[in-house]
């Protein structure tokens, strides 16, 4: 923990961590929704987007949240009520659990697991459960179709994501996310340390696979069969309204943000800039102001990656689910395996 002049008791530190977690999850969600969903999508579609609430529609998010929260809490008559109500929370919980391992600075992290990557990937799969039980508990055939499609899709795309991360782990030599950041920023490309060694350069195949898998994990088009608005109305979210839908909505974009954080950590160098710029040699050399700049740098990198995710979302039509599965099993997984093999070979020989 940072050396403050004041000694913060443990409960204070935990409170700070909880608040930080909330900010780390909700701030990206809000930014992504306003900046990309409302404004960027509108500009790409040659329209303006929300302009009424606040200057240039900046308070639209506040209006939306207020609207959703004051709606009636409905549940279908034949729905399995307790599970129906639990499903959105499961999805959101997995996001919060995932952000716990993301480092925002040399000392600005929530936890520092030595198996951070392993934990992160494991926890990311909890949202699958949430979607499945949402689809089943809604007592609606559309939701059921959406939930079943989600189950197949999300499980299929977990594997490419894991395998893509494997390449990074091999190259960094550690599963600890902080170590991965340090490895990228202290690394050198052919002796030139000015850029560090962001793994996107060597692991470009892995990066591509990871981003595609993330798009599928978020059920964004072109992989949004579970939602498939023109067929299933809203898929597993059809019967949800009011506050519960808000949770799903926030969870969708918060997860996008958090996955972008993780991708930034794994491939873009995380919170750091190449240590060469400031002649640091290891993480102990890093100055304390990096704990303030780090989150900002992470935020910027997250925005860049989310921009790509959203851009693809607005442009492409969606895959049919058998084409989607074929793509995962027959294209992405062999590619990811090959990537891992090549990385391992190169790591050993060089």
């Amino acid at each position, binding site marked *: 923990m940072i050396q403050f002049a004041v000694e913060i008791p443990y409960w204070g530190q935990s409170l700070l961590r909880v608040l930080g977690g909330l900010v780390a999850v909700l701030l990206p969600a809000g930014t992504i929704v306003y900046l990309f969903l409302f404004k960027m999508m509108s500009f*790409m579609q*040659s*329209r303006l987007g929300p302009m009424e609430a606040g200057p240039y529609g900046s308070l639209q998010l506040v209006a939306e949240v207020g609207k959703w929260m004051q709606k009636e809490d409905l549940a279908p008559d034949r729905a399995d009520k307790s599970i129906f109500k639990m499903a959105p929370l499961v999805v959101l919980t997995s996001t919060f659990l995932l952000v716990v391992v993301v480092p925002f600075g040399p000392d600005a992290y929530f936890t520092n697991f030595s198996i951070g990557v392993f934990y992160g990937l494991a926890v990311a799969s909890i949202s699958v459960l949430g979607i499945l039980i949402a689809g089943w508990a809604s007592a609606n*055939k559309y939701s059921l179709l959406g939930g079943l*499609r989600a189950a197949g899709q999300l499980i299929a795309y977990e594997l490419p994501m894991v395998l893509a991360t494997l390449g990074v782990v091999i190259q960094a030599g550690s599963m600890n996310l902080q170590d991965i950041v340090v490895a990228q920023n202290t690394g050198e490309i052919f002796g030139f340390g000015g850029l560090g060694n962001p793994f996107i350069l060597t692991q470009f195949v892995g990066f591509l696979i990871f981003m595609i898998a993330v798009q599928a994990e978020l059920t964004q088009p072109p992989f949004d069969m579970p939602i498939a608005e023109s067929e299933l109305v809203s898929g597993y979210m059809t019967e949800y309204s009011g506050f519960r839908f808000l949770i799903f909505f926030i969870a969708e974009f918060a997860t996008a943000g958090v996955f972008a954080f993780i991708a930034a950590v794994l491939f873009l160098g995380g919170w750091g800039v190449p240590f060469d710029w400031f002649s640091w040699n290891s993480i102990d050399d890093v100055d304390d102001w990096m704990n303030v700049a780090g989150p900002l740098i992470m935020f910027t990198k997250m925005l860049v990656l989310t921009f790509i995710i959203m851009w693809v979302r607005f*442009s492409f*039509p*969606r895959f049919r689910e058998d084409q989607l599965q074929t793509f995962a099993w027959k294209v992405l997984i062999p590619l990811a395996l090959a990537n891992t093999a090549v990385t391992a070979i190169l790591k050993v020989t060089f």
Partner: protein
Amino acid sequence: MTMMSERQQLSYIASQAADARLNVELETEGMTLNIGPQHPATHGTLRIICRLDGEQVVWAEPGCGYMHRGYEKLTEVRTFPQVTTLVNRIDWLGSFANEVPFILAAEKLMEIEAPPRAQVIRTILFELSRIANVSLFLGDLGVQMGAVTPVFLAFRDREYVLNLIEGATGGRFHPNFDRIGGLKDDLPKGWIDETRQAMVKLREFCDIIEDLLFGNEIFQSRMRGIGIIPADVAKDYGLSGANLRASGVDYDLRRDQVLPMAWDKADWKVWTHPDGDSFARCWVRLQETRESCKIVEQLLDQVPAGPIMTKVPRIIKVPEGEAWVSTENPLGEMGYYVVSKGDLGPFRVKIRSASFNNISIVPWALKGVYVPDIITILASLYFILGDIDR
């Protein structure tokens, strides 16, 4: 040798029974899914009842009639000019095109022809309504599949055409402009130049859509090879318009029959596609939109001077007889069989609407496809509810 205790035996039997119960409960039969009548994908209140086995359709049946307005009965109590108002609302996206076959049938019974100026302007407005109709289809195609961007571009560029139609006729959606013997009014000043500029924009729109949507690999994999309708099945069901031409049948009512309209004054091509799948239908419509722009541009140069209306009495009585006129409307072949008894209004009008036949093939076409393909096949067949239900 171990002997199971009685307690163990009982628990074993109980677990077997529980398994058996579970097997019976998990025994799945087909699920019946109702797509519509309120649904984002159906262009209106169409209901498709599907029986699914997993995600595959076992049988599907459209249930129409949610928008049945009884047009054929309504025409029997109206005079001929009043029927024009009614008939606008059958295919409301390309409304001018609905009036034309009826007016032509009435003129055929009266043995009069509209003056050349009116014929050319009628053809121009007809093609403009086709462009308005099909450009919405092109945008909508993306939305059915999840690409949300093309529809906004389509609506933006369609505004040019709707403004033109409004400028000439006074109504964006229901122009009600055709009259027996000619047109209601002449064109406003500057309309011809505006139309030329709009056609340039519409061509650009077609190019954008082709790049954005048709060139997309996902679009192609969703549409190619899906919903193949062979030519003889298409003819059996009376599929018409782009649906028929996409199955390789070279038949276009604008070229293949003689009507007092101006299509023969322009140099244009009929597009066909040999495949007969969903992609072919969409592609043919895209090319037809471009062709319509070409026709309009050529006809704009050839608008003759002259009266806009022949001499007809103020109150029109159509002599006794029966006439059938059909034209190549945006949705397909639309025709009117007008039976007149010499009255002020028709005795019976049979409205042959294109979408009725186009959708009658749905039970045949949807056997064995996946649920997402239902949406794409329906989208490619392209129907308007008013056209099916009249």
